[in-house]
């Protein structure tokens, strides 16, 4: 799973739908890889307003990255500053969680991640 996806995934358990701490899911025993992906500036600028910066900061810290700036960059920042753009691209698109678990802080459910694929199948009583 890309860090990008971690910024949007929520716990799938029924009783967690209304629980605010069911997002973001928390990486545990995470093994990361860095992929080489072509920079897509237009995509990042499109996506930026939808990024939950607070959740992204939490995830980044939990994955062992240095702390993010306290406020998100603006689209103008991304256009003007190549380094900010690169950094964001690297974190969101090139960083993949390949092994480990994603844990819900509300219900404690652990979603396994293997070979980069998160398993969101739930036993039917949890849906």
């Amino acid at each position, binding site marked *: *799973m*890309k860090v*990008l*996806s971690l910024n*949007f*995934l*929520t*716990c*799938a358990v029924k009783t967690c739908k209304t629980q605010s701490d069911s*997002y973001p899911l928390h*990486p545990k025993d*995470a*093994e*990361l*890889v*860095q*992929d*080489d*992906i*072509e920079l*897509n500036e*237009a*995509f990042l600028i*499109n*996506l930026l307003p*939808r990024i*939950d910066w607070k959740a992204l900061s939490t995830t980044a810290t939990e*994955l*062992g990255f240095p702390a993010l700036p306290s406020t998100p960059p603006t689209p103008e920042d991304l256009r003007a500053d190549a380094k900010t753009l690169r950094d964001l691209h690297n974190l969101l*698109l090139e960083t993949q969680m*390949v092994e480990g678990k994603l844990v819900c802080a509300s219900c404690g459910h652990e979603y396994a991640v293997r*070979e*980069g*694929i*998160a*398993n*969101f*199948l*739930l036993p*039917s009583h949890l*849906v």
Partner: protein
Amino acid sequence: MSRPEDTLSADIHYNDTEARKYTTSSRIQNIQASMAERALELLDLKSPSLILDVGCGSGLSGEILSAVPPDEGGPHIWIGMDIAPSMLDVALQRDVEGDLMLADIGQGVPFRAGTFDAAISISAIQWLCNAESSDISPMGRLSRFFDGLYASLKRGGRAVCQFYPKNDEQKKMITGAAVKAGFGAGLLEDDPETKNVKYYLVLTVGGGSLEEKGGDITGVVKGMDDVDILDSRIQKKSGKGELKKGSKAWIIHKKEQMERKGKVVKATSKYTGRKRRIAF
């Protein structure tokens, strides 16, 4: 023709052998590619977008999204959901660019509200009409899916689902569930009344930029042929328009279909060697 949907669950039908056979068949590759391109055309995206691929399988549909060049508004970034581990395995081996999840769309769509610009689904959602072994009805699974899909799309977003309905009843059941979830819905038929007929459920979420442009679903499919418009707000179904055989519009339509069919799109993987590193 027998339909595997009638007897098996998708994760059982798409086992290792079937997943490999499916993905390596050049006939299937071409069909899936042309349907994904058609869906993309209906989505009408203007800039690189975040797209959900519902029932992404081995990535034949998703790689069309990754392959859209910048001058055509791409490339798009996609996240795929699929219930069959063997299909996802093949996707991994093929190094597709999308992010993959093992998930049952009949259980919902676990993303926060307004995540995606758009969604596509190619040849997958008819599987929801089968209750399988579960204790939940097809109607229940369909509404979990469409309710979840609706919430996960941003306002003004769109989804296009190509599917293979078994009969009219399934067509109604699927379209009805989408409308009930709040979507504006249109059902588009390509190659109507032939054995190659293809159904595209075109779904829109109100609000956002789409409405500003003055077009909800009626705008999207206005002037298109063979479109049924279903709308939860007006609760009425418009008649189906058909192109007169031999008319100019009919010929253009056929020509475009032929062009689409002849086209094979090969996506080149942008992945290079993977460097592993342990966190913490």
